[in-house]
């Protein structure tokens, strides 16, 4: 067992974990934060997306011990106008992917604000990149929605990026 201390949604948490426990399972099973969802458990769906020091990651492929002393934000710790945008634009149907979509969108918007390009950016050296629907779709491609609420998701993210 390994002692792991991490800040989760602003609170310091102390856990005693087997090193094989994923960050996703640590959040859900050890801290009771079930807002973060387990979809594929193999990095293919994005349902488990959380923010670590403001960067989005897939928590299913993260061992919790690797994230000791880091600052984790899950959907329970998110208070952002993008949540209202998702409601306004029907950015979900069953809701299973939504916490991952929202955490991913917050991380993605921060990447864009820092000037990071994407695979569809026409000129990689550009200082300013327009966050078009095409850019949003590419940058959010790591989050699958089985219900196919993508149009609403893109509209919600576009609204909150303005």
């Amino acid at each position: 067992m390994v002692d792991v201390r991490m800040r989760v949604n602003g609170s310091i948490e102390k856990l005693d974990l087997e090193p094989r426990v994923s960050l996703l399972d640590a959040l859900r099973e050890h801290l009771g934060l079930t807002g973060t969802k387990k979809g594929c458990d193999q990095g293919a769906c994005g349902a488990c997306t959380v923010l670590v020091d403001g960067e989005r990651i897939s928590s299913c492929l993260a061992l919790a011990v690797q994230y000791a002393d880091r600052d984790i934000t899950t959907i329970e710790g998110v208070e952002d106008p993008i949540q209202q945008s998702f409601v306004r634009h029907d950015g979900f149907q069953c809701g299973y992917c939504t916490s991952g979509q929202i955490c991913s969108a917050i991380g993605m918007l921060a990447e864009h604000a820092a000037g990071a390009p994407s695979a569809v950016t026409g000129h990689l050296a550009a200082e300013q990149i327009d966050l078009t629907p095409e850019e949003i779709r590419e940058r959010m491609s790591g989050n699958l929605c089985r219900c196919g609420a993508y149009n609403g998701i893109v509209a919600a993210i576009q609204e909150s990026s303005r």
Partner: protein
Amino acid sequence: MKDFAYVSAQDVATAVRAIAEPGAKFLGGGTNLVDLMRQNIERPDTVIDITRLPLDRVEELPDGGVRIGALVRNSHLAAHRVIRTRYPMLAQAILTGASGQLRNMATVGGNVLQRTRCPYFADLAARCNKREPGAGCDAIGGFNRNAAIFGASDSCVATHPSDMCVALAALDATIELESVRGVRRLPLVGFHMLPGDSPQHETAIAADELITAIELPELPVAARSRYRKVRDRASYAFALVSVAAALEVRDGVITEARLALGGVAARPWRAHAAERALMGGPATEERFRLAADAELEGAVAQSQNAFKIELAGRAITATLRQLQVEGSAA
């Protein structure tokens, strides 16, 4: 997942000492290894977490090259201004791989060492010579739509899945390795092995070595480069075929060309024959296609992937045409 001992290494000396233990394995971003451990394909006794090693910087070198620490995250490298402007094919290649979340986790060293996505390698019920030497290969004659068209053998037809490495091959990158025995440097071209009769030997790294850095040479032609990836869906999928290309044209004549292919072999495939066919020729569609055909002469299809040969020919031609007409991705 099998239980294991966990060690967090704080410096390179500690990490390379710890890897000498039998059954020890380095862990970077975890995007490949944790997945394989969960499927019981990798079963290390000790995991040495190297993510706290001070190898996370991108530095411009006095000789004009660039040194990339092995633990630089894929997303950080792709967003780095020097990479975007001087080596755009590398930024593009990385950005076409995986997803935003995974690129934030995955390290440069881990990307080089990632394992094949051949479905039989990841299926413990299937035969795979790479996973279990001598067991046989269910991909041969099986589901091999995404198998190799270059350098495959009777033992293995798997491909290397990296996009980043395709650009690194075209750029003549160097890999720096460190162990208790010292430091050595190897060219990336040739670092990944063709399967032959021992597909379990995937790279030239020794069991006790750690990748500490990747170095890019100064290469002016790289500023005029692109990466094009063809896949079954528009994003978040591995390549069927990909092309990294750089082209220097003076007065309509090709004076320098760099070309490498992904998704076609167990290694990022540096297209030397195509480069030779381009050099000194006119920068025309016909010449681009001739060069592609020169490379693809040696291609051999499996039962389901003959389409890849023509697809590669068209992808090479289209990438070179786009470079010539629209210019660099930067």
